């Protein structure tokens, strides 16, 4: 007899069930129940934010090199568990070819950002020649805690495309998984858990985004929110974001990849450092 998997949520490096005890059944195209998923609550969102904030220091202060190594490690572990993702993607209704393509693209996406981790700062920073005796430079810093509403029509690749640039840039995240395609999200959390990603850096909730996203958007300790174009819900979220001037990045397509996706979740910091100028020594030799 087959051992069925219990799909749970992921908060602060452990896999609890929702504190609310609620669930929703995920049905196959033939109407059979595939699994019962956690219907996460407001309180789960708040717990996830606390975990993400707590993890922010550790993650953002890791060396860029080390973050790159960890992202690459995620790719390695995902590669090793491909089969599990194929099966889940197929269970959720797509063909084997498409499933293989999606998993491969997700692995490639991880490798892509693993390579960016110690380069994007160099590309997007500047040294600014001010008219005074100062060394003035502008560099990038992660925004902090980022809420991610994963694309609804993609179980794995959408989530990976939106989450990994945030992590690459040193942010920590709360991910709201696709409501109707949640299986790979939970299994991907297990991959993260096995990949040296410290607990709390990624927190993942399943359930109704109409219920959880507004809580995330209004939360005063979340610095930014990312989603695809989600129409009217997006508009109400962008209003909720105003209370703490959360940055809300809405992509027209959920699956994009590039430098800009990292930079959108960075703040530019400019530093003026004094230069000592004593005497009249010049460099006219």
């Amino acid at each position: 007899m087959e051992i069925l998997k219990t799909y749970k949520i992921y908060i602060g490096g452990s896999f609890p069930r929702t504190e609310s005890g609620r669930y929703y059944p995920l049905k196959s195209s033939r109407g059979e129940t595939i699994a019962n998923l956690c219907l996460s609550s407001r309180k789960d969102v708040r717990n996830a934010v606390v975990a993400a904030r707590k993890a922010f220091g550790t993650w953002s202060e890791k060396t860029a090199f080390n973050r790159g190594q960890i992202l690459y490690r995620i790719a390695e572990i995902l590669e090793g568990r491909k089969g599990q993702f194929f099966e889940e993607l197929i269970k959720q209704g797509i063909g084997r070819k498409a499933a293989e393509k999606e998993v491969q693209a997700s692995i490639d996406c991880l490798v892509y950002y693993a390579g960016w981790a110690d380069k994007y700062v160099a590309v997007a920073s500047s040294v600014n020649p001010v008219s005074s005796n100062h060394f003035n430079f502008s560099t990038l810093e992660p925004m902090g805690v980022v809420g991610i509403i994963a694309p609804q029509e993609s179980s794995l690749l959408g989530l990976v495309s939106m989450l990994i640039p945030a992590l690459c840039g040193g942010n920590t995240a709360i991910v709201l998984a696709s409501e109707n395609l949640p299986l790979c999200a939970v299994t991907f959390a297990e991959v993260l858990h096995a990949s040296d990603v410290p607990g709390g850096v990624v927190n993942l909730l399943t359930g109704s985004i109409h219920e959880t996203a507004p809580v995330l958007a209004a939360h005063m300790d979340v610095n930014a929110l990312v989603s695809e174009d989600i129409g009217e819900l997006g508009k109400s979220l962008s209003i909720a974001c105003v209370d703490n001037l959360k940055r809300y990045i809405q992509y027209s397509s959920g699956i994009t990849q590039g430098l800009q996706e990292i930079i959108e979740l960075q703040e530019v910091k400019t530093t003026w450092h004094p230069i000592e100028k004593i005497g009249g020594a010049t460099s006219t030799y």
Partner: protein
Amino acid sequence: MAKKKESPQGTEWNYSPSPESTTHVKLEKRYALFINNEWVAPSSKAYFPTLNPANETVISEIAWANDKDVDKAVRAARKAYQEVWSKLSGAERGKYLFRIARMMQEKSRELAVIESMDCGKPIRESRDIDIPLACNHFFYYAGWADKLEYAFPTKNPKPLGVAGQIIPWNFPLLMAAWKIAPALAAGNTVVLKPAETTSLTALKLAEIIKESGLPPGVVNIVTGHGDTGAAIVNHPDIDKIAFTGSTNVGKIIQRSVAGTHKKTTLELGGKSANIIFDDAPIDQAVEGIVNGIFFNQGHVCCAGSRLFVQENVAEEVIRKLKHRMESLYVGDPLDKNTDIGAINSKEQLDTINRYIKIGIEEGAEIHQSQCAIPSQGFFCRPTLFIGVSQSHTIAQEEIFGPVLSIQTFRTVDEVIQKANNTPYGLAAGVWTDKGSRIFNLTTQLKAGVVWANTYNKFDPVSPFGGYKESGFGREGGLHGLGAYLKLS
């Protein structure tokens, strides 16, 4: 009236008044709206007076634009964008900006005098800081106009369209330059609204723009109050809103544009920390504290309004600071000896006085300089509060005046926590002789600009803007261009 200034040696120095001449200044009795390079009477037929806050006399009358006027300006900007400005090469756009920068330089003394008359800031600051920086901003962005692809390689940068820009009263011409120059360099056209109490230099800039031959409609200047600003924010044919002002208004704007295609940059309030370590050059730090909070009467979004002094030097720093405050001149903004000019408006003076009252009521110890202040006009003595804690209102809210709250600390970790414990994140200052400590602090402080052993320094090449509730987007430098471009 001779002014008294105490020397560091304790003797008194007397300065004769040294007012800047106003005879070369050309001002109209009444200003219309600047749309399509023409002066257009407002359809509302309404005008409002603009005062000299140092003597409460009316300098001129300013048109009050309504929805219809704003619509006219947006149409002009859209037409100019589609038919002229977006078709011009970057090099040609740059030439216009260079020309405007030069003409501003030619008229810089006139602009400085008008700025001080209309805004209340000391002539020394408008002459040496505001106006040169405004000119330099045009000069700087002029050079970017034909080099945008170097700023954003592989991103095919394109202009956004029509930018609606709303600016504050604390650095009127400088803020106009911060907004207009990058917008035009990137290929956008502009509808700009100056603050209601300080429209004059923007209108003088309009004259320069007309004289420069900039194609009609590329820059439109509509004056008015909050309703005029709201008409810009809510106009459906505007692609970008750039706002500098209070966090409250910034939030109203952000709510209004939610769900629209409009991009925003918001440059909002602050409660910036200025941190003095015990190894800092104390005399230099005291000058930095003074510059941090009393520059421009404290009407500075990034003012160093929360001072953190390491405990073992607190007594010395506060003693020297009090002594230095006594030698600050508060008075006629046009007098070249003046350090602190007039508060911009009666309304702002009331706000500052309300906060001073709250500070006293909440139990902080107040100290104000003993200087004489003019009987007419809006003035406020340099003020500091000692024994302030994080829970005090004056340590949390932006006062936007010459009021400093002082706290002490023992360790680096403690001061980082205290400094970051605010919803704002615009700027910070760090004073220490140790370079490695500077970089530790500058990486830990959640602020968009960090000054080490200096404060309130600005430069066109240096990006400026905040974290958290101090807003988003940057102005100045390479990063300031991004706010006005579509990247693909």
